[in-house]
């Protein structure tokens, strides 16, 4: 980790120059095109004494020293195959994911001549190994408790997994202090960046609220405070089957303490990413695994760094909302130059940028953004339109008597009007603000508000509902919302995007699954990722897909990964 500390120092120095630099890992080049999809580099079978041949085992190959890992999934006959265009010759570590099973340390050597063959014999996991394999969703599916209690607990996932509270031995009173402390942390805090809000001391001088005490009491019923083991059986989800096994997943390691929040693929195939806790704009070259970091200067020393939403305008400029630094950052990828715009209340309290959308700024020369946590508690969240020529911020206000119109997600439509998504269980509306008139149109969504989303080519809004675990699609032509229930319980649906052909792709914070929905037939395909990951934003790759169907990019916000999920059949 000292290397990453040094990295931060370098970043700070380079921030003054506004220059980017490349971090060159040991690189194993990925062939750009699928020249020989039929040929295999590595094949094999997966089996166990308990099940015989096993379907749905995610088998991963990582070349020694490489910064990315390739995964495929075994079929109904227990067979798996890595295409030749995905594994260059070399020595590979082989791992697998099949909950309830383990695999001894395994390696394979891939040669240029003929496919390598390896058979994997899995061992039944012990109870304690199983506990460590459980996804967040599987914990919630296993634990007793009401839907409200479990849904409330999903908030933990903003900063860390359920392993912390569920493996804890704290009783209700002790846990209440912990839950109370969480309200004093910033929205982008994490265990390794435990940022506090400026009023943390005042908050923590007060006792826990009833809601915090209730959540703590619930956690104390499902953690290890009353014994050495959990008081409920652990219930793993079934492994993938059928279509869900026909996929290639590439997982890229990012350097240091990376916490990628949003990913976005540009026309050249580079994947840009924001970092939730550190002050840079990142770029991944998927062909090589090389990562470049473009430092963003600090405006408010001592305040949290990092960014959330990343957006790209039609000229290819990269924009980010820089969270606690209260900045909008713009990167010109051609020159590496970073420019900063400061929020009108940038130096007041905990004002922070979260969302920013420049995708349709070509319509009127404006981008949309918003601040949260401003100094006026009655109007802490502000929606702004920014004139890209002058840098001027224009605030848009809600109708008289209505709450702030800046909420959680922001999504611009094809006319550069903006949708606001409010991420609350009881929120029954989303809304659209007209770019020219400022008129606000409210849209009923039953409940669950919205978290993140995207516009499709038909000007329809696709959005996730985190707490009610649904995807929604709003069609402005009919003024109707269609909702789709995510089949995995307590998934924590975070984002969804339509590929403009057939499928809507979604990611969530709880399951380690990437979901693909056919909205016409209602067919869901859930692709299991090779590691526990906490995905957030999705970016659908609509072109350049060698298997003729859309693929999706997402990220491991809590473990520094970027993933590319490519179905091999429609």
């Amino acid at each position, binding site marked *: *980790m000292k290397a990453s*500390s040094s990295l*931060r120092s370098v970043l700070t120095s380079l921030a003054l120059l506004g220059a980017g630099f490349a971090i060159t890992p040991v690189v194993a080049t990925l062939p750009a095109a699928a020249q020989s999809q039929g040929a295999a580099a590595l094949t094999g079978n997966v089996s166990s004494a308990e099940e015989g041949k096993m379907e749905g085992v995610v088998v991963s190959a990582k070349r020694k020293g490489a910064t990315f890992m390739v995964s495929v999934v075994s079929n109904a006959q227990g067979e798996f195959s890595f295409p030749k265009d995905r594994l260059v010759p070399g020595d590979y570590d082989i791992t697998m994911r099949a909950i309830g099973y*383990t695999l001894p340390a395994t390696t394979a050597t891939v040669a240029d001549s003929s496919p390598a063959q390896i058979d994997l014999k899995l061992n039944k*996991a*012990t*109870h*304690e*190994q199983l*506990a*460590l*394999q459980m996804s*967040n969703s599987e914990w919630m599916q296993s634990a007793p408790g009401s839907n409200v209690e479990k849904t409330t607990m999903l908030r933990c*996932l903003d*900063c860390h*997994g*359920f*392993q*912390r509270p569920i*493996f804890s031995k704290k009783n209700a009173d*002790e846990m209440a*202090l912990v839950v109370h402390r969480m309200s*004093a942390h910033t929205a982008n805090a*994490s*265990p*390794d*960046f*435990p*940022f*506090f809000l*400026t009023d*943390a*001391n005042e*908050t*923590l*001088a007060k006792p826990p609220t009833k809601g915090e005490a209730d959540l703590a009491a619930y956690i104390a019923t499902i953690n290890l405070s009353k*014994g*050495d*083991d*959990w*008081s*409920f*059986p652990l219930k793993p989800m079934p492994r993938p089957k059928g279509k869900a096994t026909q996929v290639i997943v590439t997982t890229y390691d990012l350097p240091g*303490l990376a*916490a990628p929040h949003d990913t976005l693929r540009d026309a050249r195939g580079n994947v840009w990413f924001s970092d939730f*806790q550190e002050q840079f704009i990142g770029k991944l070259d998927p062909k090589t695994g090389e990562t470049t970091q473009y430092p963003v200067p600090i405006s408010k*020393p*001592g*305040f*949290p*760094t990092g960014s959330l939403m990343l957006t790209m305008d039609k000229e290819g400029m990269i924009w980010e909302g820089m969270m606690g630094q209260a900045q909008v950052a713009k990167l010109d990828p051609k020159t590496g130059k970073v420019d900063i715009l400061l929020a009108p209340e940038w130096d007041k309290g905990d004002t922070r940028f979260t969302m920013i959308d420049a995708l349709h700024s070509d319509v009127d020369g404006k981008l949309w953004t918003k601040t949260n946590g401003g100094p006026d508690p009655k109007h802490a969240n502000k929606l702004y339109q920014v004139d890209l020529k002058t840098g001027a911020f224009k605030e848009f206000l809600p109708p008289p008597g209505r709450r702030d119109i800046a909420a959680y997600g922001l999504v611009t439509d094809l006319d550069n009007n903006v949708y606001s998504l409010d991420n609350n269980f009881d929120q029954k509306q989303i809304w659209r603000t007209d770019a020219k008139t400022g008129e606000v149109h409210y849209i009923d969504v039953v409940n669950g508000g919205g978290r993140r989303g995207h516009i499709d080519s038909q000007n329809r809004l696709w959005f996730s509902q985190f707490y009610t675990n649904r995807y929604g699609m709003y069609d402005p032509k009919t003024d109707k919302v269609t909702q789709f229930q995510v089949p995995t319980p307590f998934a924590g649906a975070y984002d969804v995007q339509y590929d403009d052909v057939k499928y809507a792709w979604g990611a969530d914070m709880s399951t380690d699954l990437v979901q693909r929905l056919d909205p016409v037939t209602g067919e869901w395909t859930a692709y299991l990722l090779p*590691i*526990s*990951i*906490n995905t957030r934003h999705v970016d659908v790759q609509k072109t350049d897909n060698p298997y003729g169907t859309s693929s999706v990019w997402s990220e*491991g*916000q*809590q*473990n*520094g990964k970027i993933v590319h999920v490519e179905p091999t059949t429609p």
Partner: protein
Amino acid sequence: MSIDASISRRAVLRTIGCATACGAAAARAQDYHPQAQTLISQAAAHYQAQPHDDQSCGSCPYFITPNKCVSVEGDISPNGWCNMYTTFSPLDRGAHQAGQPGR
């Protein structure tokens, strides 16, 4: 208990210990130290100069040798304690490798 009776509770605890304390030992504050940030007061952290049972600041990954903390202001005794005390590695944000907590 509805756990398989053949499972040793001691084994579970041993594993949990590895999931927590071992991770913490691999990630001391001086190794991952995040940038300077607002710290909370000792009162807000419920800091005390004495250990809490077998828990003390010296074994917490937020402790900075010899007498500081990543999150709490002022001088901190390695024998002290506050309610931020943890044995989880700060580098394990929960998105662990399956079967391999921490990263």
